[in-house]
C-alpha cells in the first residue's frame, strides 16, 4: 500500500457530479457572437463560451473541467479547496487604488497661451498676440508652486504647458529654481520632476542647457511624415516638421535619448496614413507611439476638425496602426502603442498607470491639476480647454485660494463622486469597467452631464472597441499575448 494518495483523493469532488462552489463577484460582457469576457474585481479576465459561462453562473460546472480550475485560480469562484480568492482579490484591489491616497501628482503650469504655430486643431485656443496678457505672472507662479508642494504626493511632477511653453522661458527658469528651493525647505522634500511640453520650434541651446542642468524632460508633438505634419501644424515658414525633427535630435543630444517623447494627434488627413506615421516614429527612433484621437475642445470644435471623422473611422485607423505595430514586433522590431500599454497594464497587472483620461475615480483634480496663465486653477487640461470656450464649470478657483478650498471644491467632489464608473449606470454592469475610466469633463462638454449616457458616448464606444480588440488579439495569437504581457507589465 503506497503512502501516497492519488490526485483524485485531493480533489474529493466526484468526476460525475457538479462541483459545490461559491461565486465571487464577477461581470461579463459579450466579446463576439459566441464568447463572453468575464472579469473579476481586480481586472483579471477569462474568455468563456456562452454555454460555459451559463453553467458557471448556475453553479453547474464540474470540478474536473479545465475552465473550473482556471476560474478558481483567477478568483471567480471559491470552493472547499481554497478560500484564498477573497484575500488575494482584496490585496489586488487595494494595490489598484493605492494611488488615490497619494493625491495629485501632476501639476500643469500654463506658462503662456502664446504660440507661433497656428494649428487648426489646437485644443487650447492659443493666442498669437504677443502681448503679456497671455503670460503667467511671477506672483501667480509662486503661489502655484506653494500649492503644488502642498500635495501629499511624495512625487510631484511639474509640467510646463502652453501655448508654447518656451515662449515664456524666463518664467520656466524661475519656476524650476524657485520650486527646487521651496522643496528643499520642506520637512520631507518631495521627489520633484519637470517636463516641458513644447513644439521644439523655438528652443535654443541655452534653453536645452538649462533643461539638461535641471533634468527637465521634453514632450513634443510629431504628427507624422513631413507633409502631414506640416499640414496639421502650420507656422510661419511652413517648417514645423524640420524644426521639430531637428529639435528632437538636438534635445536628445543635450538630455539623453530617453528624455524626449512625442505625441501625435489624428486629423482627417492622418486617417489613411497610420503606417507612414508609425514609420516616421521608427525613423525618429522612438520606442512607441500614442495613437490619439482629437479631443472636442478649442479650435478643434471651432474649425470643425473634431467632427471631420467619427469614432468608427478613428477606430479603423487605430486598429490598422495596432496591427501594423504587432507585425513589426513579429519581425523583431520592438515598438509599442502606448494607449494599449495603459489598458494592458490594467488588464494584466494590479497596477494602475494613472493615465488621467482613463482613471476611475476620474483623474480630474486628484490625478492632475492645471494652473492657468491667468492664475485660474482647473481640474484638468481639458477643463481649461473648456474654459477657453466659455464654460468654467471645472474651474476650482484661483492660485489665491487655499489648497484646502481648491481641492474640496464642490463641483470637483460631486463630479468625482457621480462619475465613479463602478457605480455609474451601465458601467456598473460592464465587464470592462476595471480597465476603463471616467471622463466627467468630456461627458459634460459633450452631453452636459458628468456621467453621460453611455450608449451615446464616444468615450465608451472607443474604449469598448479597443478593450474587445485587445482581448481578441490575445486570444487568437499566443505571440500577441506574450507581447501584450510585456507591454502591460512594464507600462
Amino acid at each position, binding site marked *: 500500500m503506497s503512502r*501516497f494518495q492519488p490526485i483524485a483523493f485531493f480533489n474529493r469532488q466526484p468526476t460525475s457530479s457538479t462541483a459545490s462552489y461559491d461565486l465571487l463577484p464577477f461581470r461579463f460582457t459579450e466579446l463576439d457572437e459566441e464568447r463572453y469576457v468575464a472579469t473579476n474585481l481586480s481586472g483579471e479576465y477569462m474568455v468563456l463560451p456562452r454555454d460555459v459561462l451559463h453553467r458557471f453562473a448556475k453553479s453547474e460546472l464540474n470540478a474536473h473541467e479545465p475552465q473550473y480550475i482556471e476560474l478558481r485560480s483567477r478568483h471567480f469562484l471559491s470552493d472547499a479547496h481554497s478560500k484564498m480568492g477573497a484575500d*488575494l482579490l482584496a*490585496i489586488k484591489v487595494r494595490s489598484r487604488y493605492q494611488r488615490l491616497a497619494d493625491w495629485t501628482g501632476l501639476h500643469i503650469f500654463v506658462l503662456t497661451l502664446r504660440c507661433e504655430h497656428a494649428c487648426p486643431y489646437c485644443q487650447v485656443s492659443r493666442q498669437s498676440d504677443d502681448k503679456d496678457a497671455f503670460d503667467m505672472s511671477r506672483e501667480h507662479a509662486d503661489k502655484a508652486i506653494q500649492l503644488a508642494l502642498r500635495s501629499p504626493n511624495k512625487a510631484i511632477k511639474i509640467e510646463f504647458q502652453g501655448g508654447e511653453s518656451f515662449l515664456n522661458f524666463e518664467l520656466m527658469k524661475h519656476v524650476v529654481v524657485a520650486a527646487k528651493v521651496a522643496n528643499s525647505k520642506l520637512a520631507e522634500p518631495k521627489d520633484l520632476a519637470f517636463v516641458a511640453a513644447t513644439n521644439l520650434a523655438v528652443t535654443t541651446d541655452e534653453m536645452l542647457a538649462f533643461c539638461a542642468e535641471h533634468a527637465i524632460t521634453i514632450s513634443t508633438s510629431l504628427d507624422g511624415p513631413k507633409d502631414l505634419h506640416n499640414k496639421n501644424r502650420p507656422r510661419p515658414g511652413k517648417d514645423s516638421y524640420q524644426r521639430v525633427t531637428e529639435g528632437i535630435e538636438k534635445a536628445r543630444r543635450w538630455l539623453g535619448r530617453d528624455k524626449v517623447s512625442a505625441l501625435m494627434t489624428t486629423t482627417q488627413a492622418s486617417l489613411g496614413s497610420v503606417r507612414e506615421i508609425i514609420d516616421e516614429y521608427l525613423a525618429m527612433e522612438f520606442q512607441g507611439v500614442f495613437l490619439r484621437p482629437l479631443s472636442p475642445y478649442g479650435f478643434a470644435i471651432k474649425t470643425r476638425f473634431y467632427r471631420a471623422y467619427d469614432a468608427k473611422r478613428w477606430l479603423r485607423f487605430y486598429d490598422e496602426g495596432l496591427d501594423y505595430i504587432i507585425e513589426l514586433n513579429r519581425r523583431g522590431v520592438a515598438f509599442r502603442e502606448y494607449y494599449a500599454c495603459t489598458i494592458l497594464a490594467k488588464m494584466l497587472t494590479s497596477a494602475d498607470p494613472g493615465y488621467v483620461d482613463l482613471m476611475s475615480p476620474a483623474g480630474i483634480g486628484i490625478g492632475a491639476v492645471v494652473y492657468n496663465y491667468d492664475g485660474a486653477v482647473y481640474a484638468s487640461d481639458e477643463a481649461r480647454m473648456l474654459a477657453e470656450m466659455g464654460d468654467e464649470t471645472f474651474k476650482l478657483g484661483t492660485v489665491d485660494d487655499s489648497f484646502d478650498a481648491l481641492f474640496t471644491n464642490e463641483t470637483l467632489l460631486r463630479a468625482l463622486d457621480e462619475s465613479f464608473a463602478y457605480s455609474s449606470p451601465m458601467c456598473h454592469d460592464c465587464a470592462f469597467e476595471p480597465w476603463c475610466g471616467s471622463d466627467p469633463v468630456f461627458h459634460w462638454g459633450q452631453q452636459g452631464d458628468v456621467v453621460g449616457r453611455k450608449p451615446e458616448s464616444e468615450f465608451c464606444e472607443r474604449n469598448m472597441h479597443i478593450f474587445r480588440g485587445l482581448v481578441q488579439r490575445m486570444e487568437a495569437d499566443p505571440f500577441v499575448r*506574450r507581447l501584450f*504581457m510585456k507591454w502591460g507589465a512594464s507600462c
Partner: protein
Amino acid sequence: MLKLRGKAQVHNASLEMPRLLRVTSREDLPTSMRSKYALLIPIDHHASSAASEGFASILVPGAGVAVDELPGLSNSKNVFLLSEDFQYLAEGDIVRLNPESGNVSTVFRKNTPNNSILLTERCNHLCLMCSQPPKDVDDTWLLEDAFALVRMIPTDTPNIGFTGGEPTTYGNRFIELIETTKRNLPRTSVDVLTNGRAFKSESYAAKLGRVKHPDLQLGIPIYSDDPVRHDFIVQSEGAFDETLHGVLNLKRHGVRVEIRVVIHQQSLPRLVQTCEFIARNLLFVDHVALMGLEITGFTRANLEQLWVDPYEYRDTLSEAIEVLRAYGLSCSIYNHQLCLINDDVHDVCRQSISDWKNEFLPACDSCAKMRSCGGFFSSQVAFKHSEHIVPYAM
C-alpha cells in the same frame, strides 16, 4: 558525490557525548585551544603522541588501517579512523563525532559556498519528490547542534542554509535560532527551506520579521496555481491556502521570500499558469526559482509519475521564464543542464547544485560550456538523466 556522513573505527573513546569539533591540521596549535579541535592527520604521517596531546580527537582519513600501524597514536584518545571518503576534510571544517556509535558527519565545510544545516527530519508534508523523506522521530538534538554550530562557524562565512524536514516544526525555537544566527554571523546570508505553512499565523511571521535579520531569505514551494494539484504534490490537504497565507504574512512583515517550483510530470501541466499566478498575486516576492528534479528519496519511488525529460519541456520552461521576466520578477532556473534548455534562458540558469553533489557525464568532458553549466546531481548521474545530453562544440 562527497560523503558527508559515515562510520569510523574509534579507539580510546573518552568523549562522553557526541561533540562538534573544528578540524585542524596544525599540530603546533597552542595547547590551551586544543580541547575544541580535532587534529587531522594524513595516514602516511607519523605523528607523535606529544604532538597530538590535548586535542579532543584525532581524525585519520584512510580506510582499513589498524591503529597499531600508527604507533605514535596508540595512546591518544578518541582516534577516529575514517574511510577514504573523508579525504576532503580540511582546515576550518566542522565535524560531529559520536564516540559511541562511531558516526561522523561533516556539518560545515569551509571551502564551499553553500553549507546546509539539517534541523529536523520531521515534516507535515509528504512531497511526492521529497529528497529527504521525513521521519517522525524526536531529533531535537539537530536543533541544539545548530545553535552550537552557528557559534562555531567563522564569521566571514558568506552563506549558510537551514533545511529539514520542516524547520518551523520547532515553533519559537526556530525564531531563536535565526536570532542567534544574526548575533553570531551578522554578515552571513541565511537561506531557509520551509513550506511556509507555520506563517499562516501572522503573529509567528511578525516574530520572524522583528528579528530584522539583514540577509535572510525563506525558500517556499508553490507547485501549482491549482490548490488541488499543489495539495496532491505535497500530499497534504489545505497546504496551498496555508502556504499562501504564510507568504503573504511574511511579506507583510518584511521577510524576503523565494518561491520554489520543482518541475516534474505533476507540476508541468500548469507551470506557465503557475508563473502567471505568481506574477499576478505574489509580485512582491523576492525571487522565483524553477527547479529540476533530484533523483533521490521519494522521487525514486515515484519516478514513473514524476520523470519528464527536461528536453521535452524546454519550450514550456522558456515560456514560464518569459512570463516571470515580463513582470520584472527576479528568477532563476536551478538544477538544469545547459544543453537541455533553450538559449533564451541560459542567462538565468544557475550553477546551483551544491559542489559536493555536482557531477558530469563522460560525454560532458568535450563540452565547451561545461564550466558554466550546473552539471548534474549525483543521483541524476546514477539513476536518471535526460537522453538528450549533447556537448557544445569547443
